[in-house]
């Protein structure tokens, strides 16, 4: 009977603490990592856009590369976040809160660069924000027609 009372007291304490303490475990997955063997079978250069598209599927992003070329990026993410929040009322309508979060992964992907004939020049795997450092505006007609 004493054990039962302890369980009930513990349950009441936990229920009462729900407004000021919260622990969260979240997972967010976007798109799928592709087959490692497919990626490793892709030559670093000298193959056409068709071969890359049939091997890797539709890219997530497409950009211009140096006016006439092409950049494709395939990305995916699988983030797990553990977080805890403690909120304490300190004075009537005021409260203090403390939050800790641990994000383990970032958006991962493959970026492939193609020349003006849309032949593969290079591809690299890694974090997308490190591989593609800056986006550029589309080329103007003057830039396109420049020799």
């Amino acid at each position, binding site marked *: 009977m004493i054990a039962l009372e302890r369980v009930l007291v513990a349950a009441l304490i936990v229920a009462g603490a729900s407004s000021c303490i919260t*622990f969260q475990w979240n997972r967010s997955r976007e798109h*799928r990592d592709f087959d490692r063997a497919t990626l490793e079978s892709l030559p670093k250069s000298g193959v056409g856009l068709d071969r890359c598209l049939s091997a890797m599927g539709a890219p997530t992003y497409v950009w211009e590369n140096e006016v006439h070329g092409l950049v494709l990026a395939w990305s995916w993410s699988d983030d797990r976040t553990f977080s805890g929040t403690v909120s304490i009322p300190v004075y009537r309508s005021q409260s203090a809160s403390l939050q800790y979060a641990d994000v383990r992964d970032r958006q991962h992907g493959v970026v492939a660069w193609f020349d003006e004939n849309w032949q593969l020049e290079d591809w690299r795997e890694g974090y997308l924000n490190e591989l593609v450092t800056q986006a550029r505006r589309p080329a103007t007609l003057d830039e396109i027609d420049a020799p």
Partner: protein
Amino acid sequence: MKRVALLLAVLLTPGCFLSRTYVNAPIEEASIAQLRPGQTTAAQVVALLGAPTEVVQLGRRSAYRYEHDQQKRAGLFLIVVVFSNNDNQADRTWVFFDENDVLSHVGTTLEADTAQYAMPWSDLSE
């Protein structure tokens, strides 16, 4: 004892949810099969697939993106502990056009139906 266990179970599981969100209509595999590189024009692609989600200028060439997303979310609230999972998968097609707006390349991935309801610890490899 059974009543206490039931009471505790009710107290500890005050909330859970499942939700599903779609963005755009699914991409039909049969429609993609009708695209003919070297023959199909941009106007015919638009007549077949509708307005693209994105248009990208590639010098004098161009590419259109068609995308359908399916997001499945699941969550469980246990008083002070919250578990939630969000799985977002897509059907995506990129069509590339030459200087004359004739289709040159097509890339398609159809994975929207693989989105799953799960918990953070679930194996989502399948």
